């Protein structure tokens, strides 16, 4: 237990990334711990998305390193990131509109047999996937109109819930959520926030990108602020320092 408290599950150390003339990340370091929500804040273009893409293997860092559970790791693709226990809920949700919720849950890691065949040639265990997906949806108290309809036919909140639930199930270390409530109404946002709390309670490190300061104050155990590719602050958000956070984000004096 003390081990997991002292060693961050994810450390980014001295990350540098440039795209041509644009320096997207300058010497950014941060730690994420199990059972903690880390808010990643910053204005548009501050480098939040670039940082996340470097963590999940979409981009490679020019300098610096990514350390998982104390081991320096190079992740080459989102698939490798998933295998390493990092789940991402993308802003566009990465859902398959033509597939059902259960099919979406298991897409890319289908339950299938026999094991000795190459992955693509195995036969789907549809019953098992349907049952387990239904159990998960039930456990997370997500309400879906129909379980056998393509997700294209579901509302924004339901789709968001499916994407977050999918990450919840498969996450083993870290869940990264990119503006999970941006497109949602109040009631639907509430649902997603509850899911995030559940993720934290289950011992995941949650990295939350959001512009909603209410949610940051309510949920985040720590907040890291980026501006123009630099880390300009790190603090524990509460009602009192909310204004300070905002000025860090926009770069103005308090």
């Amino acid at each position, binding site marked *: 237990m003390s081990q997991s408290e002292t060693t961050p599950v994810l450390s980014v150390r001295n990350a540098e990334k440039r795209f041509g003339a644009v320096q997207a990340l300058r010497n950014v370091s941060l730690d994420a711990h199990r059972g903690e929500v880390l808010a990643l804040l910053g204005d548009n273009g501050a480098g939040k998305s670039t940082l996340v893409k470097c963590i999940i293997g979409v981009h490679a860092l020019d300098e610096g390193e990514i350390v998982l559970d104390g081991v320096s790791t190079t992740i080459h693709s989102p*698939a490798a990131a998933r295998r390493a226990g990092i789940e*991402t809920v*993308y802003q566009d949700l*990465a859902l*398959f509109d033509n597939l059902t919720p259960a099919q979406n849950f298991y897409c*890319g890691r289908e339950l299938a047999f026999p094991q000795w065949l190459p992955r693509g040639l195995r036969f*789907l265990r549809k019953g098992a996937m349907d049952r387990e997906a239904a159990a998960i949806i039930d456990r997370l108290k997500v309400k879906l*109109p129909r379980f056998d309809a393509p997700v294209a036919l579901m509302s924004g909140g339901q789709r968001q819930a499916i994407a977050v639930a999918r990450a919840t199930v498969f996450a083993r270390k870290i869940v990264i959520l990119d503006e999970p409530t941006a497109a949602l109404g109040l009631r639907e946002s509430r649902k997603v926030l509850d899911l995030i709390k559940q993720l934290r309670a289950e011992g995941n490190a949650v990295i939350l990108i959001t512009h909603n300061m209410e949610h940051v104050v309510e949920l985040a155990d720590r907040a890291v602020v980026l501006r123009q590719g630099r880390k300009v602050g790190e603090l524990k958000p509460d009602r009192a320092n909310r204004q300070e956070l905002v000025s860090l984000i926009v770069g103005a004096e308090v």
Partner: protein
Amino acid sequence: MVEQQEIASSPREGAQGVGGSAIAVALKLLSAGPLLILAILIALVSLTTPVFLKPGNISNILAQTSVIAIVALGQHLVILTRGIDLSVGANLALATVIGGLLYKVTDSSFVVIAAMLATGIVVGFVNGAVYVFGRLPHPFIITLATLSICRGIAYSISENHTTMRGMPDAVVAIGGGDILGIPNPFIVVVICAALVLVMAKFMVWGRWIYAVGGAPQAAVEMGIPVKWVLVSTYVLAGLSCGIGAVVLAGRTEATSPLFGNLLELDTIAAVIIGGASFLGGRGHIGHALIGAVMIGVIRNALNLNNVDAFFQMVAIGLVIVVAVEADVLRNYLESRARTLQAGKG
């Protein structure tokens, strides 16, 4: 008290239920549309043209439609991933010519058939590999190029640049024979369709095809080997051309660089008319088959009524326009249905 509760909860639930099921029924109808149209078409043709339902004519249609149906199955896999294969006709022609040349030096059916299948697979692999690993924006370009290349090679290597006579016995049997009155080409179609059905519906690969067609970016993010999935669809489309080549060469007892002319058009039309979506990720194997039969029936009906071949091209073209519009309309209605349901939730 219990009754009251039920009444209290019923209006909302009921409205949602009825609305939801009405939408579901509408969507079901939309997806069953092509089969309904085929049924109506067959009914109309049988009423106006009595010869149509004669067993001889039916087996004629089955034999003629079989090549389109087999290749349409391959084309369907490609279209499911938002792709297109324009080279199928030329690929089929090249496969028959290579088989025909080998028949000059050997009587072995096995060698001839294997060569035809291998040709199809190789061309398909080239299509897929250049598209995916050459980072082309769309498969249109590469399959257009291989259309030209294959047709060109087929003409230049065939004897006197034209049709060659003769095929080994087994090939002739596959293309022209029958079992208990059922034409062998039809049996080949059924076997191919069954295999594709099993792969598409019950194997992980099939799920990946739909995933890649439905949301290519998400498929990458979810760790699906998208590149190999794409290549595999072009390889299978190529294989379907090889099988089509065996059937066609067998039926005609000939091989020719002229074979498969505009087969790309017929197969794409079959897939779209059958009700698969050009936008990828939607449609099942039945769609390709329904579409192929529909084209076969339309051609046959026009033939029986002595409509000339040129007008038949016009008719098929018009059917394609209608089918593509139906696809657009279906997608529009589906997004409307989604908005409706979201509004209720």
